């Protein structure tokens, strides 16, 4: 499994990335939505397409919601699972993100178990981790 972690906080990228690596993911990082789109383009050129994107909402340059909209507008990225990982927890914002095409929503702070549960719901966990 491959994951792209998109967050303007290096600390949060490291935390999320570390948990995902423990679950067997190969992880790349991006600091905002535009960097993430660039990473997807570069990855495509070398055959690296993520199974999962973990996306912060509030970021400079391009925020997480704009990134979700951009990915969903690209048919070549239809298979990528999008999960918001953010402090934004108002119901209206969760609805907005899901309506834009995000598959799941995880509110910070979260535990490794909570992330694992979300990945299990999405069918993105290897069997040995799910057990």
């Amino acid at each position, binding site marked *: 499994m491959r994951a792209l972690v998109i967050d303007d906080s290096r*600390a949060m990228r490291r935390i999320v990335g570390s948990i995902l690596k423990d679950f067997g993911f190969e992880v790349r990082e991006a600091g905002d939505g535009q960097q993430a789109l660039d990473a997807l383009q570069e990855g495509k050129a070398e055959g690296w397409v993520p199974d999962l994107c973990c996306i912060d909402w*509030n970021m400079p340059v391009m*925020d997480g919601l704009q990134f979700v909209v951009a990915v969903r507008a690209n048919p070549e990225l239809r298979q990528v699972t999008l999960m918001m990982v953010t402090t934004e927890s108002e119901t209206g914002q969760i609805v907005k993100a899901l309506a834009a095409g995000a598959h799941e929503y995880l509110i910070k702070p979260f535990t490794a178990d909570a992330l694992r549960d979300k990945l299990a719901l999405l069918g993105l966990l290897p069997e040995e981790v799910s057990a």
Partner: protein
Amino acid sequence: MTLQEAPPITALLDPETVQSIADEIWPTLVGDGEAFVPVPVAPPAEVVSAWVTISGPWNGAVVLTCAPATAGALAESVLMTRPPTVVDDEDVADALGELANVLGGNIKSVLPGPSSLGLPQIGSAPTTGRLDDVCRVNGQWRGQSLTITVQGATQALHPSGTEVPQ
């Protein structure tokens, strides 16, 4: 609603709610077994602050303040670094900013909405507005002073561009 008409933060939030939010954040973000203890200790001579702004029916900021050395220790804990790895100034600003961001997001969720959250900022804390528009919890982490302040803005905050959800 104008800033003048907005109720003060003390009518919207109490220190116990701030503490309960910190209770959730510290073990998950700072580390297992870590806690923000609401028992004040002597404030440090030199401080650094990280904050995020909230713009909506209530306008203000959520500010985390501590000594620079405490900020460094927090960053090491958040980043799970072990000697000989050392955190640099950018790591400290990033980790303290993310703590303020998560605190701010969770505090925003208990305030009237819809509201938007600004990006984390580091430096000297913004000045407070009305004196009654401040909710402060003085506490400690690992015996060092740490303060969480939810304070009204001196003027309405206008979110810009990519800093807030569209």
